[in-house]
């Protein structure tokens, strides 16, 4: 018997606090697979945000820095500027990145900072129990949008397409959007993550991978249904693929 797919070395082998079917588990694993393949576990640093993935430091077997809500890219800037030869992973959810932290991600991206952004987009606030997120879809229900997100009468705004927003900034080089709802999408997402990490290690910035992820608990669906819902509702609006790639020719 030959082992084909096993537990990544840089991922802590412990049951996680994440809900059954949560996308964080898959994304954590993909990050660790890439780190193992690149052989950089001993010089990796994870920035764990506020949100469900506050717990990320329990699951990544390397150093971590936990910053105030939304400020993760600012703290990541400080870390990466001091540790330029380390792999710095700035892991954020949709509240951390696109609500309270909008200024920080825009300006870190615009400065072309060399850490890699991992943006987990599950169109809802998870940890705090299901409030509307900047990426919640029009008509989608949340505890703070009980009748569905309504941009017209209730002035609740429109869902933000982060990769496209950041693509306008001079400092951005690689912006990709993946999803973890099917094995094929999981594998593509892994490629995007690894490409972004390789760019960072080569000294190219700014790179970010947005990943559409299910939140079965707060969407109030079973995990299988949640992945269906993601495909039918999120993917038409949040297009998958490399949204921007102006990396050096050889790396493209």
């Amino acid at each position, binding site marked *: 018997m030959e082992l084909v797919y096993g537990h990544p070395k840089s991922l802590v082998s412990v049951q996680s606090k994440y809900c059954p079917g*949560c996308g964080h588990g*898959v994304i954590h694993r993909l990050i660790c697979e890439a780190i193992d393949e690149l052989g950089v576990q001993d010089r990796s640093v994870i920035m764990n945000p506020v949100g469900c993935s506050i717990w990320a430091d329990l699951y990544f077997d390397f150093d971590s820095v936990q910053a105030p809500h939304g400020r993760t890219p600012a703290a990541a800037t400080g870390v990466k500027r001091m540790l330029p030869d380390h792999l710095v992973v700035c892991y954020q959810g949709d509240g951390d990145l696109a609500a309270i932290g909008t200024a920080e991600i825009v300006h870190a991206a615009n400065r072309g900072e060399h850490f890699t952004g991992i943006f987990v987009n599950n169109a809802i606030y998870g940890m705090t129990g299901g409030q509307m997120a900047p990426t919640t879809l029009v008509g989608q229900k949340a505890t703070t949008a009980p009748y569905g997100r309504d941009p017209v009468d209730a002035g609740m705004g429109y869902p933000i397409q982060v990769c496209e927003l950041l693509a306008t900034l001079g400092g951005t080089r690689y912006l990709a959007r993946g999803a973890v709802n099917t094995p094929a999408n999981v594998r593509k997402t892994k490629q995007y993550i690894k490409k972004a990490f390789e760019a960072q290690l080569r000294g190219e910035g700014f790179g970010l991978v947005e990943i559409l992820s299910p939140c079965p608990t707060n969407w109030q669906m079973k995990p299988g249904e949640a992945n269906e819902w993601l495909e039918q509702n999120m993917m038409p609006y949040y297009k998958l693929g490399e949204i921007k790639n102006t990396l050096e020719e050889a790396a493209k």
Partner: protein
Amino acid sequence: MANKGKPEIDRERCKGCHLCIRACPTKVLAPDDEPNSWGYYPAKAVALDKCIACGNCYAVCPDVAITVYKL
């Protein structure tokens, strides 16, 4: 198709999300009748001879509860 692979599921690590069952192209997996100590009903290999070691189950498992071997 010749049996090429074998998935091993860590019952206690599994949270019973059953995404692996959904992802398996040859229907190797199904929910177990017996819950684990957390109260989850883990996935279970019920048709091992059908496994082709494609790794789809591993790819979608959020808990890395599955190890896949090639025979």
